[in-house]
């Protein structure tokens, strides 16, 4: 035995000696894999050894996981820098992992170890288990040892105090949660049975001698716990629900009436709470006043309400258990009130509520999962039958045809500050804009056609849009004179200027001719058409589109130096009409202008 002990606890890389030691001592029939009785023998030897080690550790008064630790082991790389027992466990774990020995052996040893250790040492042992979680959780080991592990953990939980060892309990639960697959049913309360024995006791009779201030309220308040403890009772009898909701209303009214201030919320900060953690609140009537001022107490109660409401609405019960319509409405209003109260309960009420809502939402998913019979979460890969269908569904529809256009459209709303940007590109002044073209038009400059601005289509198009907005007169010349006509005359070099100035008069003459042609039309219409022609450069207005003609006349009004007497008369005659029309025009123009403005707010706006 001592030889085995020395051999198995020798220092050095485990791989080098572990298997060899087993082979030496067991002399198995097969070299690398032990038969059943050989396994049993090895297990017995190991358990005996472990027992010895623990016994001697206990005698020496050392912590068992540190027992036999070498003081001079200061080499960080040395994996054996810990005590003998962890070393032994490491060796066994290695053997199990390589399937030289039966996989359950390590679990058996761990169970032994926890049973032999004091609670304090168990913490270290459990730390070891946690550190080896990855290896222990491997499929082949897990399958052999999951029941032993569950038993070990449950035993530990049973030994621990629920009130004093909350952290350790939590560690164990966390470990179990990680160790077992998510869909493991063994810990699920399939039937949804409530722990009705968790009864909250409170004083039923007012204390004698002292004038109990609000005993009715006290009783009402704590009586709620009966319902929280057994929510199922609420759905069966409507009278109970009535009683519950009226009691709850009283409590919520009281909470409402005494909102906690920020300071009161700060007073019991979370750190303090962690230090004085209690499983249950005390129910003495003397504490009522203090408890009502405690924001975390209030939160507990309100959270209980939310959990209860969620339960009542949860599916999966028989139809007759589902809440009635009126009850549903009451539930909704109660829930809203509770949420509002949670929100105003400091500290960080809003954040708390959000977190709670999130958790309850997740909880709902679990409820569904349980209702559907605890399906495993591993999903079979879905056969890709119709890749097109899936693809189609995913493609988003763009409001304006494609992504770029939609983005462009929304650009203004997304960049509200662009308007204030000092560097933003504004609609250029028409005079500035046309300068390059005007310079090119100077024959003395001798610009080649290829570089002439008039042949730059983008430039011209932009210029026309600006002209349409800023300089209608110039814009109107486009029909007759082409792009060069639009350039304001002042910009042109003097020699070219005459060429573009003379034309309009000619144009007017031509319009006059048109007028005489359509002599059968009424005078007014004729005048109108003349104006229309002058402005729009189109003679088709002669068809009698009075409204349009008028509107254009209005515009031309400002342009024409000397309006004809007819014109004046006409203008005077239909003043109101004009006003209306003008108004309309202005409207449309400003609308357009608005659009343009928003479009042009942004420097990178590509017009082309």
């Amino acid at each position, binding site marked *: 035995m001592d030889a085995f002990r020395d051999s198995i606890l020798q220092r050095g890389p485990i791989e080098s000696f572990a298997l060899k030691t087993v082979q030496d001592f067991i002399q198995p029939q097969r070299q690398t894999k032990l038969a059943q009785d050989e396994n049993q023998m090895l297990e017995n030897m190991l358990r005996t050894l472990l027992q010895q080690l623990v016994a001697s550790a206990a005698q020496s008064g050392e912590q068992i996981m540190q027992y036999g630790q070498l003081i001079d082991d200061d080499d960080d790389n040395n994996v054996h820098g810990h005590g003998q027992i962890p070393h032994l466990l490491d060796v066994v774990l290695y053997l199990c992992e390589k399937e030289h020995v039966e996989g359950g052996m390590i679990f058996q040893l761990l169970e032994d170890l926890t049973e032999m250790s004091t609670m304090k040492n168990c913490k270290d042992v459990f730390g070891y288990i946690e550190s080896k979680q990855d290896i222990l959780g491997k499929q082949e080991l897990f399958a052999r040892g999951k029941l032993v592990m569950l038993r070990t953990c449950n035993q530990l939980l049973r030994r621990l105090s629920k009130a004093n060892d909350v952290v350790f309990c939590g560690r164990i639960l966390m470990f179990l949660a990680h160790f077992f697959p998510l869909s493991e049913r063994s810990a699920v309360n399939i039937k949804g049975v409530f722990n009705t024995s968790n009864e909250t006791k409170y004083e039923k009779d007012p204390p004698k001698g002292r004038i109990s201030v609000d005993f009715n309220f006290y009783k009402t308040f704590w009586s709620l716990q009966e319902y929280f403890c057994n929510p199922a009772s609420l759905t069966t009898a409507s009278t109970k629900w009535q009683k519950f909701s009226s009691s709850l209303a*009283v409590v919520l009214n009281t909470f*409402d*009436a005494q909102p906690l201030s920020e300071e009161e919320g700060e007073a019991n900060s979370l750190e303090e709470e962690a230090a004085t953690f209690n499983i249950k609140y005390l129910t003495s009537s003397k504490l009522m006043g203090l408890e009502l001022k405690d924001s975390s107490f209030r939160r507990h109660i309100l959270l209980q309400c939310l959990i209860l409401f969620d339960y009542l609405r949860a599916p999966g019960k028989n139809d007759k258990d589902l809440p009635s319509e009126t009850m549903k409405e009451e539930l909704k209003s109660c829930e809203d009130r509770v949420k509002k109260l949670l929100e105003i309960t400091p500290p960080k009420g809003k954040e708390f509520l959000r977190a709670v809502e999130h958790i309850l939402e997740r909880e709902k998913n679990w409820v569904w999962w349980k209702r559907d019979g605890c399906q495993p979460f591993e999903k079979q890969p879905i056969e890709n039958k119709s890749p097109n269908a899936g693809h189609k569904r995913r493609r988003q529809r763009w409001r304006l045809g494609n992504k770029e256009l939609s983005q462009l459209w929304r650009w203004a709303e997304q960049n509200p500050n662009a308007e204030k940007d000092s560097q933003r590109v504004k609609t250029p002044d028409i005079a500035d804009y046309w300068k390059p073209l005007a310079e090119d038009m100077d024959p003395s400059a001798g610009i080649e056609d290829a570089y002439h601005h008039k042949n730059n289509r983008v430039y011209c198009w932009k210029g026309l849009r600006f002209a349409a907005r800023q300089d209608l007169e110039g814009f109107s010349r486009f029909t007759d004179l082409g792009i060069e006509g639009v350039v304001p005359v002042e910009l042109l070099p003097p020699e070219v200027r005459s060429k573009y100035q003379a034309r309009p008069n000619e144009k007017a003459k031509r319009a006059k001719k048109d007028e005489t042609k359509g002599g059968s039309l009424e005078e007014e219409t004729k005048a109108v058409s003349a104006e229309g022609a002058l402005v729009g450069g189109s003679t088709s207005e002669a068809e009698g589109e009075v409204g349009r003609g008028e509107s254009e006349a209005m515009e031309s009004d400002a342009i024409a130096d000397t309006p004809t007497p007819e014109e004046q008369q006409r203008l005077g005659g239909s003043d109101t009409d004009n006003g209306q029309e003008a108004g309309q025009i202005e409207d449309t123009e400003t609308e357009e202008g608005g659009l343009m403005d928003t479009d042009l707010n942004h420097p990178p706006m590509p017009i082309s």
Partner: protein
Amino acid sequence: MYGDATNWNEDEYRESILKEREIQTRTVFRTAWAPNPNPDAFVVASSDGTLAFHSMSSLVSQSAAFGYSKGEDFMVAAPEGVVRAHEGPAYDVKFYGEDEDALLLSCGDDGRVRGWKWRDFADSTENLVKPLLELTNPQHKGPWGALSPMPEINAISVDPQSASVYTAAGDSCAYCWDMESGKIKMTFKGHSDYLHCLVSRSSASQILTGSEDGTARIWDCKTGKCIKVIGSQEKKSRFRISSIALDESESWLACGQGKNIAVWNLPASECVSTISSPAHVQDVMFDEKQILSVGAEPLLRRFDLNGALLSQIHCAPSSAFSVSLHPAGVIAVGGYGGLVDVISQFGSHLCTFRSSLL
């Protein structure tokens, strides 16, 4: 019984209807907690001139339903003791002294202040306890010996240290009475309309009065001179000062005027904040550094000194005229309908009741 009219007594029925009406149309003008570390006994002064004394423990045991909800029929509670103190409404009731020997003082529309020994008052069940003290407001003499009508007394305030009782009277004067002799020590003249409320600031030997003329005044008790006028007299449209309250340290003043409460710091003599509420303020009160106020709405509001609304509690009277606080934190709100709503320190309704008639 149903349909049996043999013993029908029409007079009795008529009387019962009238009595019920009378109960429902009464107004509680003031409630006062008896000097006792436990919030047990309190006195209710109502518009029928009675002082009724109720005990909390019996009220709570009587009230079957906890809390209160709208439209509910309120409990009619028989008082432990009741006395017809005044002809016409009783407007204010105060305790003079802290211990068992305290005097219960009340004033009313008949221009009298009456005082009872509290122990006698509480112990006797019959309503014929003789008042120990009776002070009658002076009537103003006119030409040919004509006497003015008796001015009513709207508020009393006590200062046991100097053995004085102050009254706010309807002749726009405040009076200081000597409790030993029962004589007027000082008259405070200056308001241009009748007084609504009055509070004594014994630490500075001052009194503060609020009047219908829209001003509150601070008076020096030694000289009887007005030291300071809060609010301007010129504007006729100003609302009356309906209520006035000092805090424990007597350095903060809350002054209810119209729909506003002005909070003054007296040492600095400056208005710190103005709280406005949707309804007319009818009574204010300090609870440490918080202000309780009631008004022409069924709500008890609680503000901090900066005017931030801390909480509002629904209470039974549709218009509340009085709020009084017991040091243990229990609040009694009295108002229209003869209703008194007692609210615990947690903000829950301890009991809501109408006290029955004499």
